């Protein structure tokens, strides 16, 4: 399978908050402007999307990363929103995460995708 590729460092080297309303360079902004369009293009072309996480000055705040990748999964697993309904595993398989600076981020992104729709119904 051929691969399309995007780099987060083309968007920012200082990832910001979760939502656009909170401040600049948010995860929501990255997802809507860069990640989701590239994912859809790769999906329609039958290609894998490689996302290069390297090049950040001080790494990733958890909420930026969750909103980017967890948010992408929520979009593609929502029957009302998804261009084509996918499972979290299918979203993950459509992606190839590159992270040489911090290899643990690959696992983290996978977890955010797998747990993107989880909601606990009780406090404990």
């Amino acid at each position, binding site marked *: 399978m051929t691969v399309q590729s995007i780099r987060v460092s083309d968007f920012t080297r200082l*990832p910001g908050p*979760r939502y656009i309303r*909170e401040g600049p360079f948010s995860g929501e902004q990255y997802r809507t402007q860069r990640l989701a369009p590239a994912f859809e293009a790769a999906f329609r072309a039958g290609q894998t999307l490689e996302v290069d996480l390297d090049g950040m*000055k*001080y790494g*990733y*705040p958890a*909420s930026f990363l969750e909103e980017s990748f967890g948010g992408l999964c929520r979009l593609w697993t929502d029957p009302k929103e998804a261009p084509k309904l996918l499972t979290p595993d299918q979203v993950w398989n459509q992606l190839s995460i590159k992270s040489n600076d911090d290899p643990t981020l690959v696992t983290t992104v996978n977890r955010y995708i797998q747990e993107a729709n989880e*909601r606990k119904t009780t*406090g404990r």
Partner: protein
Amino acid sequence: MKRSWTHPDFRRAQAIRRKRAERRYKIRTSGFGGGSGTSGPTIVAPPVLSVFDEPKDTLTFCNAFRARLSGRHPRVFLDLRRVVRVSSDALLLMRAIMKNALTVNVGGNMPEKLDVAAKLKASGFFTGFAKPPGQLPDPVGMMRDSFERLVINTKAEAMVDFARDHASLNSAEASVSYQTLMEVMSNTHHHANRSAEAGKLDPDVAPSQPARWFAMVYCEDGVAYFTIADLGVGILNSYPARRFLSKLGIGVGAYGSARLLTDAFTGEVGSSTELPGRGRGLPKMLNDAKTTLPTMRVLTSSTTGEIASLAFRRVPEGFHGTIFRWSAGGRRSES
């Protein structure tokens, strides 16, 4: 019934809080005569001002100061002559109280101990209203502070860059410090404002006036001391904590504030909002404290402790707000 800052009930509650704080601290009602020209009650500072080392005295002092500034005629004189040690967390809290006040009319004198006076002067706290006692030595450390309502990545970057320039941070400490600053700014934006306290705010709705965060990094002897604070409702009175407790049908008193704070850091409280993907900030901070920043501590809603060990306890003096503090580049104590 809709409540607001100008509602009579709010004004009454504010006046009661102020009187209680003044009674506790025995504020003198005559002017101090320190030559500042500011008449009004004098608040005498304790010898050690440090939020985490001397929480009771420091919070009593800061609460009295805050209560006085929240009044209609906020004139106050701060007597700091006896202070022999002031840590950067206390400095930040005092500056935050000043910045948060609608109107400020504060006078004060400097500590008699010259190095402490130099540190206070360097913080900018007394700019414009106090004369240093004679020739001051150069301050031992260097500091930079910042405040904002939004989550601004460049402000967090500037704090960490400053720390790297003036202390011996490794790259992991620098990265985790940046990420922690961003998460705390974000938590302040979402949960610290007063409408969240009223329980009216859905966490996914933007607050009309988000609370302000205040951050400071103080570098001394190769170590950077980070503090970030807000004067909002505190983690234990935030929307997620209230929702968590309401599901259990129990109040914070019966549940235990230390236990509730532990649940906040282990992710139980954040996940109770039932919003997918939310509530990951505090658990990540717990993990980062265990692996990279073991000195990270928190004071929120009158509960404090070391995050890595989840060893929390109540402090005798109440506090509305949240303060995080950690050091990077070593484990020495701040002078």
